[in-house]
């Protein structure tokens, strides 16, 4: 292997290590860094909605698990604050 390729691979590995260390720092530990890359990043989307756009509609399920309603049914008379999240 020529010297050029050796240096290229070495630089690449150093950069990879630096990225991994930064991720560990952000996430808190190597396990969390892996979790972030493997499970979080694929689902995090900035999206294209912006202020002024029509709010998308979606069908939601009530707490009893059987009744349904739409987000649009809750809009109209007053501002609607929507809180998206989960228990974990």
């Amino acid at each position, binding site marked *: 292997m020529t010297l050029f390729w050796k240096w290229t691979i070495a630089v690449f590995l150093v950069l990879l290590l630096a990225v991994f260390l930064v991720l560990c720092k952000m996430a808190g530990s190597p396990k*969390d860094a892996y*979790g*972030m890359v*493997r*499970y*979080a990043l694929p*689902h*995090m*989307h*900035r*999206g*294209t*909605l*912006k*202020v*002024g*756009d*029509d*709010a*998308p*509609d*979606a*069908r*939601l*399920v*009530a*707490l*009893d*698990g059987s009744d349904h*309603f739409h*987000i*649009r049914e*809750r*809009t*109209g*008379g*007053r*501002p*609607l*604050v*929507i*809180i*998206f*999240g*989960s*228990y*974990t």
Partner: protein
Amino acid sequence: MVQIYNDYKDHADFLTVYVREAHPTDEWQMKSNVKEDVCYAQPKNLGQRVAIANDFIKRFNYPIAFGIDDINNAAEAAYSAWPERLYVIDESGRIAYRGGMGPFHYDPEEVRAWLAARYGAVKHDAPVALPATSSSTSPRTNFPYLAGAFLRPSASVDSDGTFAMAFLVPSCYKREIALKGRSINHGFGLVTMPGR
């Protein structure tokens, strides 16, 4: 958000939309989940998600109206909502406020500022500092936390000679079984919980 809801529920509607789990046990579970005993696998069907949502409501007596995203995650996709996000939709059905992506840019105070600009600020008195409760005065509950080691258990002994030992099944689903006895002969020490 519950405080903001209480302050402005006479002026605005609030809706919580429950989306896919952020830190399920079978994906990226965090230490805080174990500590807080919030351990659920990623729901594979709507029934599981509904059950977890109901657990959440029950545990926190959550007062805000609730809707659960279908298992195809349509609402989450439409609003780019995972893991958490805040929106305000105005009376005409348009987005009036779009919060940053959680957790780092999730800021309920921005929602408060939006509502305050429209309906006025709601002030609160400074919280009263509650007297510290000393768990050390409750020997039955003040057990040291030993992470999974098989050691002689720590126990408190009451004046009448009985003692209580707290056993904690070392899994995320904590159960505590308190046993009373007159002697400690076993060397089985288990993970114990500090007093709550």
